[in-house]
């Protein structure tokens, strides 16, 4: 036996060697995703060239922009023939783009505070894991927001709020005898209270009063946000009621809902806005100033609630019939089975559609610029482009408007996707 007869035996295992460079990290990712075939390689190169040419064209224009100049002519003198953006218009007029040109400058903190509070108030509605106590603020917010933005004495929104509470208490008392009785009693109590409260708030018009700002002074992006928020939050409950009404077995309610939905959906929004602005002026007594924003809110809410009703009806129709029957067999009445079984499922299915309508509605608020309201687009098309200093600035202003709208709409859409993932209970 000699050592030579023993073959070489390795005593320890080889250390694992790293994968080849072409099969790891960024190289692998690029090979698989960008250059997996000849066609894909060509497309990748073409896309890279496209991105490069867009950026090389636009970045110098954006980065070299002028931020301080009194007018477009001055901008051009500073640039001396170079091509770059004249963002000085945003520096000089940003407050008009955000708040409109008539909202008093010293009161800008009020809509800003209202906006911050809006986020706080909406948060518990959007995110279920926040403390439920925050919902108190949500309930109070419409009155606080109104008081902050429009001003006047705090008694007016306070009376409005107390009116709702009185109506609710009367409703609770009378609900035992019948639901309709309770609703009617609540309504009557609220109207009586508001009429009396109107005198009280008139008498105490100096109490905790902010400077009153008329609706016609609202403008800019603030107006878009006011219209969008109010109309979406009003049209969602109305849309649910309309959708349920359309499925109702009671013929009158069903006919009313069908006629309303079909009529509103058959008319362009811009026509409704013209009716709100122009035609109503003929029906009302001369000299009437029935608040224009209120008129527009009513019209946009009607419009979007008809669309939301149809989206929710789709969700209701998508539920299997067994769900309805399950509700009945459990002995739930109509309201209970809707609230506990049908609507939670139907609304979950409808989320993408509802968000779609909400985003579309928010962008549609720019249509009010055609009835001479100065929302963001109205401010750009009217006063700013018509000023002798800034006539001829297009890209910078409309780019800014697109950016503002994109931020909000992208946020809404991201939220809805998150919500869908949260509510995904079907283990697909």
């Amino acid at each position, binding site marked *: 036996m000699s050592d030579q007869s023993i073959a070489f035996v390795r005593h320890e295992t080889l250390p694992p060697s790293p994968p080849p460079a072409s099969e790891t990290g960024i190289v692998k990712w690029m090979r698989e995703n960008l250059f997996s075939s000849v066609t894909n390689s060509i497309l990748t190169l073409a896309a890279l060239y496209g991105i490069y040419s867009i950026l090389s064209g636009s970045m110098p224009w954006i980065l070299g922009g002028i931020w301080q100049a009194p*007018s*477009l*002519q001055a901008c*051009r003198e500073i640039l001396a023939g170079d091509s770059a953006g004249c963002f000085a218009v945003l520096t*000089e*007029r940003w407050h*008009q783009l955000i708040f409109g*040109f*008539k909202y008093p400058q010293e009161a800008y903190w009020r809509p800003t505070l209202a906006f911050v509070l809006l986020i706080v108030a909406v948060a518990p509605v959007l995110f279920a894991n926040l403390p439920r106590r925050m919902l108190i603020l949500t309930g109070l917010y419409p*009155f606080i927001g*109104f008081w902050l933005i429009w001003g006047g004495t705090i008694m*007016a*929104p306070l*009376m*409005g*709020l107390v*009116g709702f509470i009185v109506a609710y208490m009367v409703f609770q008392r009378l609900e035992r005898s019948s639901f309709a009785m309770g609703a009617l009693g609540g309504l009557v109590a*609220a*109207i009586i209270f*508001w*009429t009396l*409260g*109107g005198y009280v708030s008139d008498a105490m018009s100096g109490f905790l009063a902010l400077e009153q700002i008329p609706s*016609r002074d609202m403008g800019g992006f603030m107006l878009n946000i006011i219209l969008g928020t109010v109309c979406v939050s009003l049209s969602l409950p109305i849309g649910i009621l309309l959708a349920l009404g359309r499925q109702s077995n009671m013929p009158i309610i069903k006919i009313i809902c069908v006629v309303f939905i079909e009529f509103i959906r058959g008319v362009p929004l811009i026509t409704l806005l*013209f009716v709100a*602005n*122009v035609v109503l*002026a*003929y029906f*009302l*007594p*001369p*000299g*009437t*100033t*029935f*608040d224009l924003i*209120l008129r527009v809110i009513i019209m946009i809410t009607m419009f979007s609630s008809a669309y939301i009703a149809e989206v929710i009806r789709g969700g209701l129709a998508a539920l299997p019939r067994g769900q309805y029957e399950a509700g009945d067999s459990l002995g739930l009445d109509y309201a209970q089975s809707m609230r506990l079984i049908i609507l939670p499922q139907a609304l979950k299915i409808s989320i993408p559609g509802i968000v779609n309508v909400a985003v579309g509605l928010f962008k549609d608020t720019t249509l009010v610029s*055609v*009835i*001479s309201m*100065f929302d963001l687009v*109205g401010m750009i*098309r*009217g*006063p*700013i*482009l*018509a*000023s*002798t200093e800034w*006539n*001829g600035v*297009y890209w910078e202003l409309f780019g800014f408007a697109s950016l503002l709208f994109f931020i909000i709409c992208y946020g809404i859409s991201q939220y809805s996707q998150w919500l869908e993932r949260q509510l995904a209970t079907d283990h697909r």
Partner: protein
Amino acid sequence: MKKSVIIGALTVAGLAASAAVAGTMDDVKARGKLNCGVTTGLVGFAAPDANGEWQGFDVGVCRAVAAAVLGDPKAVEFVPTTGKTRFTALASGEIDMLARNTTWTFSRDVDLKFEFTGINYYDGQGFMVPKDLGVGSAKDLDGATVCIQTGTTTELNLADFFRSNNISYEPVPIETNAEAQQQYLAGACDVYTTDASGLAATRATFEDPSAHVVLPEIVSKEPLGPLVRHGDNNWGDVVRWSLNALIAAEELGVTSANIAELSAAATNNPEVNRLLGTEGNLGEMLGLDAEWAKRAIMAGGNYGELFEKNIGENTPIGLARGLNAQWKNGGLIYTPPFR
């Protein structure tokens, strides 16, 4: 709370309905503010500045009327109107007068039941071409491509002009003025046609205005002026003579610089005296006090001063007086005598 707003609005409506029986001037005085309809924005004629103050040539007329009636040129509630909402706003009583470079036409005056109270700007359709084209007259434009806004009277005027001169053109239909500017600069058309004041304002926004010329031909009549509703002649007189006072002031050499001196005591010129109220009782006839015209003129200067400040040759818009010069200087601006 929505309900309380509506009830409140109806109450206001009821009060306003009972007040509407009185004359417009009493309404304005009771309100303490003049509701004046203007455009949502037109370069040089009406636009709010960075501080939200309305400025412009049409705005000047509103301020003059407010100064004459209420004694304060700032006591104006400017109601912005679009081309579509302006006439309903006036007819429904939402505004007391409309100063929104509106062309005085037969059907607007007669059929829509408005009363034009004068002309503060004589406009007309013109042509703009790049200087490189080497064209000196609109009659040389045979075969040109023309950018034109669809659905306007300018479109019809253009067709008439080319047909009567027996030359041909190729229209490029455009929706808005902003789009037209871009198309014209991009070379999509050789010629851009719209109102001459609009051409001048557009040209002023170009990077190199001197590379474009506005041709001398004016092919249509567009007399622009303030208007009021039919049926309140007293109020119509106030608006008409406030505008006339501005025009007369320029003719008589009364400016915002020397008006204090001229109105301190009666001068040698009896018409100046009657205008400024140091002689006669013209103001009383209108239902105003003696110094109404003085206040109207002091609001923004006389007609010529308003013109120079807002749209004249020293502004970026750079309009020459042309037809809008005083009649003594070969223009059409002419006021009946103050007598």
